[in-house]
């Protein structure tokens, strides 16, 4: 299969209106602990619009069959829907080809695929992989595992107190033994938007490929993998208003062709004999077994929903929420914001005086406010700040200033109870 994709920039957009958007997410109408739900845990998982819920339900009611193998109507229709979703997602990130878009179980699975397949082939004793202090465990542990297997080493880009990468050290880390740079596009704990264009350009100067963990980026800004010239881009469906258990690995065709399969099984083969097996072409080479069909199709519906809006308008709306929330929270006595990078996405990690984030989160929950508390799967980053964790509010397109008001009032309530 080789489908060339058109750039979607020119497609018609509808004006962004947060009040209208909220109505499209049925869960936002519910109450929690007797209070209207204020959902500020979008960094962990985003809620689903009617468009996605209806698509998933319709698929199971009308369309389901296994894909890529049946001659019967349902199988062909499900296959078409699944491959249409791949195309939609490819256009969304402006991939050159649909077969550069691999369906995975999520960001973690995508990174593990690259670590096992790329790392297994291209990492040798003495080689190096560069990551950073602020990585999610998903972009640390797979590299530790493959580096241990191959005798390679991890190099860590340090950060400053604001939570920004030290680009001078990064440059000095790029060396003759560097085989890959793998880092966050946007930090889940701090909100920092990393200077990915520069990270990629510097790596490419030395012919080093770059993997970006885009889990916290794709639902908040326009991502164009061709403009970035990124080699691998990983993200999850469920943080992009799609179903859980599905994600994407974008990889440049040349790399994916050069990499061995990740898992063996059905769908990924061309011909199997006991003596020798030959592999299928992209993308199927990397998609062994019956995939999460409804997940892929649902993610396509989520992308269709999301791309109805102009990404710039969404980003501007979320920046407004971020600045408003930063101002409201900073005004509270004892408030400490963790992560104060100049370039931030709509994530605020905070600590309230010397209280434990768990206590703050528990009280906010009683008020119907969902935030995440803990180390956010970034323990080395928490160690850097010498804190056990933070409370984190992470916003999405359906959040508005009233959510921030509720959060600020909730934190003040927590302060009055805990301090």
């Amino acid at each position, binding site marked *: 299969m080789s489908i060339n994709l058109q750039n979607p920039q020119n497609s018609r957009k509808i004006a962004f209106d947060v009040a209208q958007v909220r109505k499209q997410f049925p869960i936002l109408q519910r109450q929690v*602990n007797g209070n209207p739900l204020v959902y500020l845990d979008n960094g962990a998982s985003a809620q689903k619009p009617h468009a996605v819920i209806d698509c998933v339900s319709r698929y199971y009611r009308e369309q389901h069959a296994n894909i890529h193998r049946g001659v019967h109507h349902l199988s062909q229709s499900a296959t078409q829907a699944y491959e249409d979703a791949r195309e939609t997602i490819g256009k969304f990130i402006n991939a050159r080809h649909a077969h550069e878009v691999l369906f995975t179980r999520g960001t973690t699975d995508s990174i593990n695929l690259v670590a096992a397949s790329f790392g297994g082939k291209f990492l040798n004793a003495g080689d190096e992989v560069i990551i950073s202090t602020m990585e999610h465990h998903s972009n640390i542990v797979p590299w530790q595992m493959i580096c241990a297997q191959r005798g390679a080493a991890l190099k860590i880009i340090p950060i400053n107190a604001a939570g920004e990468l030290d680009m001078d050290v990064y440059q000095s880390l790029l060396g003759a033994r560097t085989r890959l740079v793998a880092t966050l596009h946007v930090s889940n704990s701090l909100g920092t938007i990393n200077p990915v264009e520069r990270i990629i350009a510097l790596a490419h100067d030395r012919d080093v490929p770059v993997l970006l963990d885009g889990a916290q980026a794709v639902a908040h800004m326009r991502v164009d993998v061709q403009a970035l010239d990124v080699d691998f881009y990983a993200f999850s469906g469920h943080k992009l208003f799609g179903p859980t258990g599905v994600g994407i690995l974008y990889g440049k065709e040349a790399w994916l062709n050069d990499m061995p399969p990740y898992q063996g099984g059905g769908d990924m083969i061309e011909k199997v004999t006991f003596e020798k097996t030959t592999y299928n072409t992209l993308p199927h080479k990397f998609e062994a077994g019956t995939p999460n069909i409804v997940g892929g199709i649902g993610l396509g519906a989520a992308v269709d929903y999301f791309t109805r809006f102009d990404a710039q308008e969404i980003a501007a709306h979320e920046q407004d929420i971020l600045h408003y929330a930063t101002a409201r929270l900073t005004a509270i006595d004892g408030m400490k914001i963790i992560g104060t990078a100049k370039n931030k996405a709509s994530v605020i990690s905070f600590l309230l005086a010397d*209280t*434990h*984030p*768990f*206590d703050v989160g*528990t*009280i906010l929950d*009683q008020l119907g406010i969902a935030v995440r*508390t*803990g180390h956010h799967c970034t323990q080395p980053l928490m160690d850097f700040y010498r804190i*056990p*964790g933070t409370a984190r509010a992470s916003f999405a397109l359906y959040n508005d200033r009233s959510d921030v008001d509720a959060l600020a009032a909730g934190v003040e*309530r927590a302060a009055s*109870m*805990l301090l």
Partner: protein
Amino acid sequence: MADINQIQDEIIEEFGIFDRWMDKYEYLIDLGKKLPLIDRRYKHEENLVPGCQSRVWLHAELTAGKVRFTADSDAIITKGIIALLIRVLSGQPPQQISQADLYFIKEIGLREHLSPTRSNGLVNMVAKIRTTAETLRQCH
């Protein structure tokens, strides 16, 4: 000393007067603040309860056939919950501790703290209390 179920019933009655969640949590916070300090030397790695978002230390000693628990946490609400557990279980014989049905937790509306999520360690805390009591019983 009252038996485990008598103490549980007392606690349920105490919590019965709170109709607002805030009062209940303020009481828990107060209990947390009042929890006697654990001896510093017992706040070591082996006494840490695994799987809690906050750090929880639990120390147990067997004297005259009864287990005495002391504990601490860096989260105050967690500490309040521990204070309740200690009130129910400390000073009881090991066998009764390991077999106790801790129904008061659901009755006073702290059931959500029992869900086995990775952010919540009450399940692990209770498990650690039970296994500690069981170990002490078998050693003596």
